[in-house]
């Protein structure tokens, strides 16, 4: 087992050397967290808690039965998503870090609104103005600047590729 761990450490070092430097800056590790802290659920329970602050160790069946812990406590926090993004970036997976960055922002958006936003981004569903308004909402209401930029980019592409509402011979 010790030999295996050493092997893993070597591979991680090699990955960092060869890929780490090339990873886009956005997901670059700055939390001091590395692949050595993974899995967080085993090695860094101290970093994990429910959105209202109940420690990971206390998310137990007993506490569910007593009513101290509820369904809403079993949610990932924006901070943990950022940490998982840092871990992904540290092993050379920059795009995953970007995805988790968007996800981190989305934790604040209610379930129903997320589903609506996804549907609005589907082809031929929204005008450019509607998409830009959605970007504003993401930015101002939820502080989701990365998601807002992503939706604005989609609005431009949809305009160029005729994927906006009305671009089709009317099917809806």
């Amino acid at each position, binding site marked *: 087992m010790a030999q295996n761990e050493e092997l*893993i450490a070597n*591979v991680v070092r090699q*990955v960092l050397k*060869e890929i780490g430097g*090339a990873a886009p800056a956005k997901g670059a590790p700055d939390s001091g967290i590395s*692949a050595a802290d*993974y*899995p*967080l*659920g*085993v090695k860094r329970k101290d970093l*994990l*808690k*429910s959105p209202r602050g109940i420690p990971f160790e206390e*998310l137990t*069946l007993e506490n*569910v*039965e007593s009513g101290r812990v*509820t*369904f809403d406590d*079993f*949610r*990932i926090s924006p901070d*943990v*998503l950022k940490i*998982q993004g840092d*871990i992904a970036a540290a*092993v*050379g*997976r*920059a*795009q*995953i*870090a*970007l*995805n*988790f960055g*968007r*996800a*981190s922002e*989305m*934790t604040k*958006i209610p*379930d129903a609104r*997320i*589903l609506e*936003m*996804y*549907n609005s*981004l*589907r*082809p031929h569903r929204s005008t450019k103005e509607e998409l830009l308004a959605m970007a504003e909402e993401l930015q101002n209401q939820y502080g989701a600047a990365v*998601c807002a930029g*992503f*939706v604005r980019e*989609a609005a431009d*592409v*949809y305009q160029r*590729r005729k*994927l906006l509402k009305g671009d089709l011979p009317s099917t809806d």
Partner: protein
Amino acid sequence: MAGTKRSKRFEALENRPVHLDGFIGEWIEVGLYAMGSPQDPKPSIKIEGDKIVEMDGKPRSEFTAIEQFVADYAVNTKNATEAMAKSEIELSRMLVDINVPRTECIRLFTALTPAKVARVLETMNVVEMMMAMQKMRCRQTPANQAHVTSAKDHPVMLAADAAEATFRGFKEIETTVGVVRYGPFNALALLVGGQVGRRGTLSQDALEEAFELEVGMRGLTHYAETVSVYGTERVFVDGDDTPWSKSFLASAYASRGLKMRFTSGTGSEVQMGAAEGKSMLYLETLCIMVTKGAGVQGLQNGSISCIGVPGAVPSGLRAVTAENLITMCLDLEVASGNDQTFTHSDQRRTARTMPQFLPGTDWIFSGYSAVPNYDNMFAGSNWDIADVDDYLALQRDFKVDGGLRPVQEEDVIAVRSKAGRAMQAVFEELGFPPITDDEVEACTYAFGSKDIGDRNIPEDLKAAERLMKEGITGVDVAKALAKRGFRDVAESLILMMRQRVAGDYLQTSAWVASDGTVYSAVNDPNTYMGPGTGYKMSDERWEEIKSIPWAIRAEDI
């Protein structure tokens, strides 16, 4: 041939099952071409600043939405000039060269354009691809996924089959429905049954995208997989999505602490009539790169529900092997197909699985039908429960870890029964239509849904609707189980709910062990560099694989 004297040999051959399969010659215009169509683009790249302004012979102003997404998110421009300068043969030799580490291959392959990637694979034969897979798959230890479905959508049978499947070793289980409105109950059956068979099981319910996300948010499933991407803009839009909407959906899953992967496969564009004359592998490469660009950790590919298309053309199954390998070369988890039925020939269906089975992949099947073929609601599977002893024999014959283990009849009966009783308790606690002791008994001992009675379907569907409307969650199910004495199963459900808080299983190629520890490409990365390295079967695991119960033991003679 009328009036011509027939050869009895040829007549006999024509009656073989393989003659019932569809075979078709190459047809460039409609994209019936496995790899290297003369109409595939020629690789090229031009970068200004850090932006790609020309890719594979096309200027940026003419990029489709897919091409723009791939150019901006999936090609590492920093290494692109270096990587693109290498010849195809140089790059493919790196994949099979044991002295070139996986990390170096990843560094270069994530900096290639789609046309270049496809061309590299054209230089390889299928044995070279298998060698490369051994090195390039993300997670060192291979694993396996099962389909658990029922022609009757019978909740008790589904729970029993889920328990047996995970007891046999499948670490992920996937269901879908015969009747759509049964969706919530199918999710519930796999949630409960899956944990009875093995604590730590990941389960999913493959239905419409928005529904999948909703049941996931509720804690009734742990991951999603049927989030499809396509290789031409027209087919992508016909599928009612764009790379941006799919990426947004991917982030939505992560924001709820749910594992997910995309799905694609060679032949889907042909099947949807818009392949634009490109080869199946080139279009699939675009799908893989969209997945990479979206920051999704993995992909289910290997033609999947379109396997009949590559299965019919020359070099088609080689292309299917190639698409799995490309996924690995882009550092993505691969759930490598071997699912939908495509042939009447037992030889062909076995051979089709060897390129994934022998080298090992993250998920060799996606999935293996853990139920009889007539119960498989994914239109049948290449392997099913009736073949499981053959599969165990193959693991033993070749000393290959295919993810399954031999089991004893009495143990399987015990887990099936327990899963049925657990469902019975949950149904009663939540006020759903009763499950009788006779139903539990029948499902415990059945081979398939033909051996069991029918449920009151209208009543079940009403209750399934209520499950959704009342917002019943995984925590409610755990409480019901605990209250009725299934405390260990309840603990398992909570252990899985905790995964959503930790997010460890969001990393590449993750599965969850029974103590809750997540193993993924982060802490179990593939280190293969030739014989004596990489995944090594433990003595304990080899003893397990060897011990098929029906083998004669020397000491008994």
